[in-house]
């Protein structure tokens, strides 16, 4: 009996110690580890956006290339939009259409528009800055999602130049990748939610390979983001992230 009690006490102590250790990590530390985990020199991926709304479901396939956090190129490969490209250079977004003689630079309210009618906006593609530069971060506690321990963070915008003034982020306590996110307006109204459905190990790194974004302001609307193939830190063609290269 005494031995049993001792085991229970030990277990309780270990649990408490683990929890305390977890909270001992500051919110900033968690964000730093999260961002370090998502930092690649280069990334090349193939995947699809599966958009579901009141009119049914549509699939847009793409290949994407990224270099650091500043440069990204998304080229659509499905027959309806084949050849269309989205280029991000720092915070600038450019659209390329094979039938257009000029490259379209998106700015202002156009950045809030949906990419291919999905639940992602062009603004969601931007953001090379660290979350810590843009948001004040607070650790709200921990929660379990699908049996995995998560750090629950609250992010409050420091200024006005962000797409979402308030965010809640569930960060996997072991892999330090986001598992869920909720995006809010300044008024506190829920705008979008992101649910990570699948994480894949690539070259020893955890990479989000399937996620679903839902626009809370649209009924019966969701966009599944699926990565079928991904290569990390492989050399990319030179001059890939330039306006001149878009027409290639």
């Amino acid at each position, binding site marked *: 009996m005494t031995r049993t009690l001792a085991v229970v006490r030990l277990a309780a102590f270990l649990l408490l110690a683990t929890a305390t250790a977890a909270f001992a990590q500051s919110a900033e530390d968690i964000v730093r580890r999260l961002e370090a985990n998502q930092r690649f020199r280069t990334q090349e991926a193939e995947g699809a956006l599966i958009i579901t709304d009141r009119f049914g479901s*549509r699939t847009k396939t793409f290949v994407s290339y990224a270099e650091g956090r500043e440069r990204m190129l998304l080229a659509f490969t499905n027959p309806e939009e084949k050849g269309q490209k989205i280029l991000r250079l720092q915070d600038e977004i450019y659209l390329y259409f094979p039938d*257009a003689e000029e490259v379209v630079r998106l700015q202002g309210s156009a950045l809030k528009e949906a990419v291919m009618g999905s639940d992602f906006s062009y603004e969601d593609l931007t953001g090379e800055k660290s979350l810590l530069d843009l948001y004040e971060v607070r650790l709200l506690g921990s929660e379990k999602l699908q049996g995995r321990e998560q750090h629950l963070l609250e992010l409050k915008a420091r200024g006005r130049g962000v797409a979402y003034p308030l965010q809640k982020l569930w960060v996997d306590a072991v892999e330090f990748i986001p598992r869920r996110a909720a995006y809010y307006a300044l008024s506190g109204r829920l705008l979008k939610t992101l649910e990570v459905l699948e994480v894949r190990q690539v070259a020893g790194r955890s990479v989000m390979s399937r996620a679903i974004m839902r626009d809370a302001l649209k009924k019966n609307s969701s966009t599944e983001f699926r990565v079928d193939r991904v290569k990390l830190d492989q050399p990319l063609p030179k001059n890939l992230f330039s306006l001149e290269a878009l027409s290639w």
Partner: protein
Amino acid sequence: MKLAALAFRNIRRNRRRSVLSGSAIALATLIITLMFSILAGILGDYRANVVRYLTGHVRLRNMAYDANERLNPLHLSVPGYRDLVSRLEEEPGVAAVAPRIQFATAVYREERTFGGLGLGVDFDREQAVMQVQHSLVAGRLPRMGQREILLPAGLAAEVGAGVGDKLTLLGKNKYLGMAGMTFTVTGIARFPVAGFNRSFLLVPIDTAERLLKMEGEATEVLLLARDDRRVAALAARANEIVSEAGLTGVEARAWERIGMWHTLMRLVDTMYNFIALFFFILGTTVIINTTMMVIFERLREIGTISALGMKPGEIVRLFFLEAFFISIIAALAGVLLGSALTAVLSRTGVDLSRAMQGVSFEVSPVIRPKLNARSTVFVFFYSVAVASLASFLPSRRAARIQPVEALRSI
């Protein structure tokens, strides 16, 4: 007969009085005639603009399109529209057929974007429907199959683009993906409605099909009827043709049953009738007032002719005839002058563009009054009847007064 001659003599005897009385009647008649013409012009213009630019007499669309219109649902289309257009053109009751693709778009030029409403049209067929060739103020119409665009004057000024310039149209394709294509401006149009002038940009329908991935599909097909009183029958016939073609999701509707335009037109019609009534009352008051004043002014004369032996009934008839003759001449003059003025204004137009700034209504800022034979004839008889009847009351009262009393009261 003797009284009629006497009445004519009285009219001629005091010309100034007769002219004064007649002028009031003529002026009131002229204003009412002109007012009716202007109102008929506004309503006719509204109807023509709605039918030619928006609905046709009959419009064929996918049944689910209207409920989702604000989402620009290009996939809710009229498939195989070319065969359908050919079939509809064979119908004897059809004067013209115009297939269109309507799409929400943004004009991109020099890193600036401007909202607009794109219309993919068949420029040859639109000569009979939208009559766009009459709206052209610079350049030429786009050629079918080419990446050419006709810009409305308002939008062209805003964008800063002229004939020969290039611009890119952005939008969503049928699959709700992105769409973008560069066009050359070949012409500038000034549409009759200010709202259209700011938003309507026209491209060849086959080019629009490529831009929007709508091969062989239109968002609507508009019909003009040979006889606009048989629009409902034409819609029913179009539905039969649609059914024969196996286009199960497509429906033809008469323009009266589309949107709020017809309801709005009826509302405006009622409103205008109230305005017309106001002018009628004003005109009637002028006629009654002048006629009664003229009779009361002639009490001494009434006393004299009564003392000479004319019976009260004869006095009433005499004054009635005087008013009747004056009103016939005056009303005729008023109607003729009103009609002439209408004819002139219908050519020159009445420019209400300043008054209509910011008004979102399918009426042209330059109104062309339209003479309506039925209302003009009615105005003539109404003026004659009011002036003649207005003479009864004072002349009956005057005729009952004793001659001595009548002479003393002056």
